């Protein structure tokens, strides 16, 4: 995905916010044009080989509130299924 990013993007001035809003129109939660491309729609997507760390971080965000650096480091050597078990055990 290629986006044009003005300098103001990094400074939170009104223009930044405008860019932010435009950006959000393109991100998945807003069903923006990139993600509403039929090839990218959820029901048509094939499981892609996603890097393990990205999957683990996704899991930590959805099953909690993200991971601390230490938690992430410890979880990277485990499978997602094992991390799920650990999360459930910690919450018993």
């Amino acid at each position, binding site marked *: *995905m*290629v*986006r044009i*990013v003005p*300098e103001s*993007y*990094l400074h*939170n001035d009104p223009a*930044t*916010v*405008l*860019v*932010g*809003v435009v*950006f*959000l129109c393109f*991100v*998945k*939660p*807003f*069903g923006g044009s990139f*993600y509403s491309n039929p090839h*990218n*729609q*959820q*029901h048509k*997507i094939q*499981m*892609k080989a*996603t890097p393990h*760390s*990205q*999957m683990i*971080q*996704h*899991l*930590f*965000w*959805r*099953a*909690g*509130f*993200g*991971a*601390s*650096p*230490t*938690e*992430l*480091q410890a979880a990277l050597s485990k499978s*997602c*299924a094992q991390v*799920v*078990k650990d*999360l*459930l055990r*910690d*919450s*018993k």
Partner: protein
Amino acid sequence: MDIVKNEALALKSVRKELKSNTNSREEVRDRLKEMAEEGRQTIGSLNDAWVARMGQGKGALREKMTLFWHNHFACRSRLANFVEQQNNTLRTHALGNFKDLLMAISKDAAMLQFLNNQQNRKKSPNENFAREVMELFTLGRGHYTENDIKEAARAFTGWGFNLQGEFVFREIFHDDGIKTIFGKTGNFQGEDVLQMLLDNPQTSQHISTKIYRFFVNERVNTNHTAQMAKRFYRSNYDIADLMQFVFTADWFYDSANMGAQIKSPVELLAGLQKALQMDFVDKTPVLYLQKALGQVLFNPPNVAGWPGGKTWIDSSSLLTRMQIPKLLFRNETLHVDVKDSGDANEEVIKRKKMFEVIMNWETFAKSFEKVPEKDLAKTLASYLIQVPINDTIIAKIERQVADKERIEKIKQYTVILLSLPEYQVC
């Protein structure tokens, strides 16, 4: 959480004083006002304690589930001990059995009070509780008739609570007659109605869809929710089993589901605490921020809860969200004003806009000590942000922070990355 005294009992004794005329009416009124203010402050403390618990680390899944159920069984109360009790009930059953949770919450003082079931009596039935139990808590709209609600309300007559927050069945107000609900006729009690709702697979479908929207993607994939509903129903509503199924499903890790959710205000705040291992010294701005961003814990907008998803973001809340890192780490002030709604139940939040945080940058930097200087920005981006960041942005961030000490560099990279719109999704 266990930090609240019995406020309902204290309020009752003050009201008794009002009747006994031992004090002037003004004195007692002032006392009631003070108590109401204390109550609000206590609910504020419960709010702080819960956000801290979310950001702490241990039992994160339980806290996330508790947050989900807090929105599913959305409820408000001015009595801090009722609020605390309900929160603890949600936490206790968060990963247990949905049947137990539904039974417990249907007999919960705050919920019975919020849905006016104290007024549900044989001579004048109040349908509010029965309606919400069907529409929001179990079946969902369109899966019951008006007559089912009327008849179910009769079964819930006499369900109330005492000042200790305990469930009380007041037989004198209960309608013991024959009722016809979902085509079945009998002398049904409230518990029978809840069991009928659980026996209907539509309840499993409704809850699974809500869980999918909260934990996976706002855009529902009906194949996936059908799998979830089947599993949930077969397991007799085992919540932990359902969550394990979701988090180990291949489709959960589809790229379409990654970065597909907008963080709720509370997720955003707890996530910052978690990622940076920081703590807020003064909690007042945290409450203020929750209000500015549209999600104050224990204060959902109505019985349907926070709509979530895209509604978390508008031009004003996005500006506030993007300001947060600078407020936290650059001592800037919050440039946003929040209007009070005038709702007496609502938290009164002082306009304190300066944040004080405890954050050890050296400890945080240590986690990245093996990362070569040239890869620092990229590594921090992949740790903090759940969607790919354009190389152009990384290059611009690196240019901004060139010629700084390593720890300062990490701090500046972090503040900039957390200010990006990409940080708002997970």
